[in-house]
């Protein structure tokens, strides 16, 4: 069905061309004739010749009208070509018949037309008809059945004529052969190209993920079936429209267009999370990957793949719920463990000896440690699924630091570490989630305590720097090698596993801290003079 439509469309294109050519040719022949008649010695009748030209031009017009309405275009074309043939034969007759030297030019024009419009077979048919028409004119005039219109005023003798007739007919067939052959070749090539084009179109259409091709401003140039399915819009409705206006959820389009800027910097856009709004008003979560399609002739375009992440989101949700449930299961026994220890330590269950108290304190500390790890796990899973939601409030960083330090007091006291906090005067407030920020700082500070030997100092400084509040935690601990400065923030990274075994930890603390700080649009990094020379962990938060 589709194919037929395409073919017909192509045919109609060709007809339009042919009709225009024919009209031009009629006018052109007439003008040439006019000048030749006026300025040369040739003397041929005006009326029949002009009539032929006008008839051709006249028939040409309804032809264009009919082609749009008739299904069997092939037959119509045949009909018209035969009509052309007859008219040309008439023109030739009135231009001197046998004497006319341009037989070999006039008929091949129709043969070429047949090749362009129809097929190889049509070429030969037209060549045959031309030969018949030509031979008839010559013989009819030669035997004086048809009156000869003298051009130069002489007629060549019959034998000589026969050679010319045969040569001309051979020439017709030669033209038919050449045209037919090239038509076939061109058709074959076109077919091949079409096939390739169709193949790539089918590939694009069959891709499960949505695919759009945009120009640099985000206007849709092409969209595949999946996009139609996902958005509910037809392709025709989308092409030419900016993606921010039609597919993407209202108000998020600018974000996407802004994100596309990375393409001009030479990198790809990956896993860009956004919602699309379908025609019936549903918002569907999508992940977009986009890259730049460079072309030597055209402006570069953007190829964007949109993947429906509804299922992923659901899985994420299930995962988070699962972790949340597991956490619950883990925290429940911890509750009674911790609680009973507290009660025993309080002496509510009878006298406790000094030794028992000492041991119970250890159990209690371990229980708290366990609780911390479980909570980290929860945070970690939320980070993984990108569901670490913030509840920001205006707060002073000093208060967060002070709270974290007082929370860590037992560890600080145990290792006899001297902690000093230096806060700049009138440090601006920041907009941050208090609990998360406390955890981020706590993790960094806890890390410093862990790696600082007994009796040494940790200096905490809070200051303002270029619109940011900068917090640095400087320890006199084991320090870091240069190549580890960035690695320490990676998940599950342990600088030295032997050391960690002594100190404990799952390598999540700094990764979590980094995630939290970055979620607040801040930055976190580590500085160190080298192994054994202490290290400084610094993070910044934008001042509110």
């Amino acid at each position, binding site marked *: 069905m589709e194919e037929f439509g395409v073919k017909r469309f192509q045919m109609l294109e060709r007809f339009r061309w042919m009709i225009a050519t024919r009209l031009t040719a009629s006018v052109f022949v007439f003008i040439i004739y006019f000048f030749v008649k006026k300025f040369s010695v040739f003397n041929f009748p005006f009326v029949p010749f002009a009539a032929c030209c006008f008839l051709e031009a006249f028939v040409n017009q309804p032809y264009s009208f009919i082609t749009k309405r008739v299904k069997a275009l092939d037959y119509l074309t045949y009909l018209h070509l035969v009509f052309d043939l007859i008219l040309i034969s008439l023109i030739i007759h009135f231009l001197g018949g046998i004497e006319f030297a341009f037989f070999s030019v006039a008929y091949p024009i129709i043969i070429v037309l047949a090749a362009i419009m129809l097929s190889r077979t049509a070429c030969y048919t037209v060549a045959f008809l031309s030969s018949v028409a030509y031979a008839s004119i010559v013989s009819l005039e030669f035997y004086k059945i048809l009156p000869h219109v003298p051009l130069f005023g002489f007629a060549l003798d019959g034998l000589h004529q026969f050679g010319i007739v045969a040569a001309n007919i051979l020439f017709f067939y030669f033209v038919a052969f050449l045209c037919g052959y090239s038509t076939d070749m061109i058709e074959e090539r076109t077919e091949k190209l079409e096939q390739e084009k169709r193949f790539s179109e089918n590939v694009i259409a069959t891709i499960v993920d949505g695919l759009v091709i945009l120009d640099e401003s985000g206007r849709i140039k092409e969209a595949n079936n999946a996009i139609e399915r996902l958005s509910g819009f037809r392709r025709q409705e989308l092409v030419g429209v900016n993606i921010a206006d039609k597919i993407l959820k209202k108000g998020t389009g600018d974000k996407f267009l802004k994100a596309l800027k990375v393409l001009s910097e030479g990198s790809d856009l990956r896993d860009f999370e956004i919602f699309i709004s379908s025609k019936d008003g549903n918002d569907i979560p999508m992940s977009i990957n986009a890259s730049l399609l460079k072309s030597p002739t055209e402006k570069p375009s953007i190829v964007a793949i949109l993947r429906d992440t509804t299922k992923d989101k659901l899985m994420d949700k299930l995962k988070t719920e699962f972790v949340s449930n597991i956490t619950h299961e883990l925290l429940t026994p911890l509750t009674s463990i911790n609680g009973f220890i*507290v009660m025993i330590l309080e002496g509510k269950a009878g006298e406790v000896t000094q030794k028992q108290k000492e041991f119970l304190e250890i159990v209690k500390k371990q229980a708290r440690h366990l609780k911390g790890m479980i909570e980290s796990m929860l945070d970690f899973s939320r980070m993984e699924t990108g569901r670490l939601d913030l509840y920001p409030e205006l707060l002073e960083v000093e208060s967060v630091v002070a709270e974290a330090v007082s929370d860590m007091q037992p560890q600080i006291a145990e290792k006899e570490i001297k902690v000093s906090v230096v806060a700049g005067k009138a440090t601006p407030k920041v907009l941050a989630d208090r609990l998360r920020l406390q955890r981020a700082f706590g993790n960094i500070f806890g890390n410093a305590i862990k790696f600082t030997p007994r009796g040494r100092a940790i200096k905490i400084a809070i200051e303002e720097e270029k619109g940011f509040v900068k917090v640095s935690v400087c320890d006199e601990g084991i320090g870091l090698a240069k190549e580890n400065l960035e690695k320490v923030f990676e998940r599950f990274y342990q600088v030295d596993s032997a050391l960690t075994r002594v100190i404990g930890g799952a390598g999540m603390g700094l990764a979590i801290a980094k995630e939290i700080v970055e979620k607040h649009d801040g930055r976190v990094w580590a500085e160190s003079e080298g192994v054994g020379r202490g290290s400084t962990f610094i993070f910044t938060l934008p001042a509110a």
Partner: protein
Amino acid sequence: MANKILIVEDDLPTVELLKFTLQSEGFDVVVVYDGISALRTVEKENPDLILLDVMIPGVDGFEVCQLIKHNIKLMHIPIIMVTAKVRKEDRQMGFERGADDYISKPFDPIELATRVKKFIDQRTPGTVKPPEGEKR
């Protein structure tokens, strides 16, 4: 007469801990292990305070809380949610359903006892109490 506290909790060790903590503070303790018996017992025992876990069999803690707070005869009873659901949304949900306080697990028993005492002491004689003889 000692104040009566209803504990709704399905984890036995936790129940033991709560019982021990509250009894050593001199409270009477009634324990149920699921949501439905919680609702039944509240009407029967008319406790002075409820310690309510969220993840309990049957009707969950949030619903129990809501049902009690929507009952004109029972709405005066303070409810403290005790749960390991530590997310802020859960906490929010608890308060939306009418919980008076929220203690997250693992809790410090001493702190819990203090909070319970605070709620009991706050109950001034003017507080609405169900009329006598309403028991069925």
